[in-house]
């Protein structure tokens, strides 16, 4: 159910997410302490390629990492195998990616 390829994908995405999570938390603290409004945040993020890449990478890593984690949990806890398990893995990856990409687009598109 978890071969070397999936194992590596989950570890690599975890490594990617580590610094991104820390950066995200620092950003939240910074934004709240200054008391800046939603409009002020959007004025800084909209049209920014860097924020788009930052959160785009985050969303991609989360989608891969969480889909593999859900694959293991559903297989072990619910006994799902074979095609059903592949559908669940790819389906959860696609849902997370689309939802995350929509959010990134809404915040960073010019």
């Amino acid at each position, binding site marked *: *159910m*978890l*071969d*070397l390829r*999936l*194992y*590596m994908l989950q570890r690599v995405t975890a490594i990617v997410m580590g610094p991104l999570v820390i950066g995200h938390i620092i950003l939240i603290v910074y934004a709240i302490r200054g008391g800046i409004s939603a409009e002020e945040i959007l004025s800084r993020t909209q049209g920014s390629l860097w924020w788009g890449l930052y959160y785009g990478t985050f969303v991609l890593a989360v989608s891969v990492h969480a889909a593999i984690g859900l694959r*293991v949990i559903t*297989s*072990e*806890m619910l006994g799902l195998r074979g095609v059903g398990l592949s559908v669940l893995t790819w389906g959860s990856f696609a849902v997370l990616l689309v939802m995350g990409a929509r959010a990134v687009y809404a915040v960073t598109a010019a």
Partner: protein
Amino acid sequence: MAAAQKYMQVSVWRGDEATGALEEFDVPAQESQTILDVVSWIQQNADATLAYRYACRVGMCGSCAMMVNGKPRWTCRTHVKKVLGDNGRLTIEPLRNLPVIKDLATDMTEFFDKWIAAEGVFHPTKTRYDEIEGIDPESSVRVEANAAIECINCAVCYAACDVVSANPDYFGPAALNRAWSLVNDTRDGGQAARLEAVSSNGGCHNCHSQQGCSTFCPNELNPTLSIAGLKRETVTSLFRRRS
């Protein structure tokens, strides 16, 4: 006047998985008594049809493992006093995670098939006409191999493993521990096939490092550590292949 004989209540699994049930026996308590002594007493004095498996009686053959009060044990080396609950009761069942043939005897076929699937078999590189290869007992690979080599195939770790329960494809701690001892065998010529086997669907990457295997291994081996070694080796082999 001799002291009155004391008895203990022992529940023993009878029948197969689907239709079996626990049956109660009153077994004479002795000062020094193993779980295998208890099972043998029942078979010899109470019910001759009780099915169970044992051979050496001294902890070398790995035949007599059973669940004792819910935990996997080698019964020939497990003293009753060590495992008797506060209520003074014993429950003896067949090993977990294996199909039950009858009573306390399990079908070990899948356990040994997984050893083969994990490439837990030696691939010789020399013939009988070649010189015997010298192995330095202090070399790092030999030290790693030594740590994993005393497995007696009792399947206690297999019964203790929750990943085996949840994932029937998983090779289990014993097979992977054996594969790791062979990864560290410099005489072996099947390393590429072995690393591929332990990287497959049922391989080492499914282990959650819960360490049930290491907790219950009667020979105090650490299959979790062996599996961690396999994970490390398979990952580094990825980079070696590309360089």
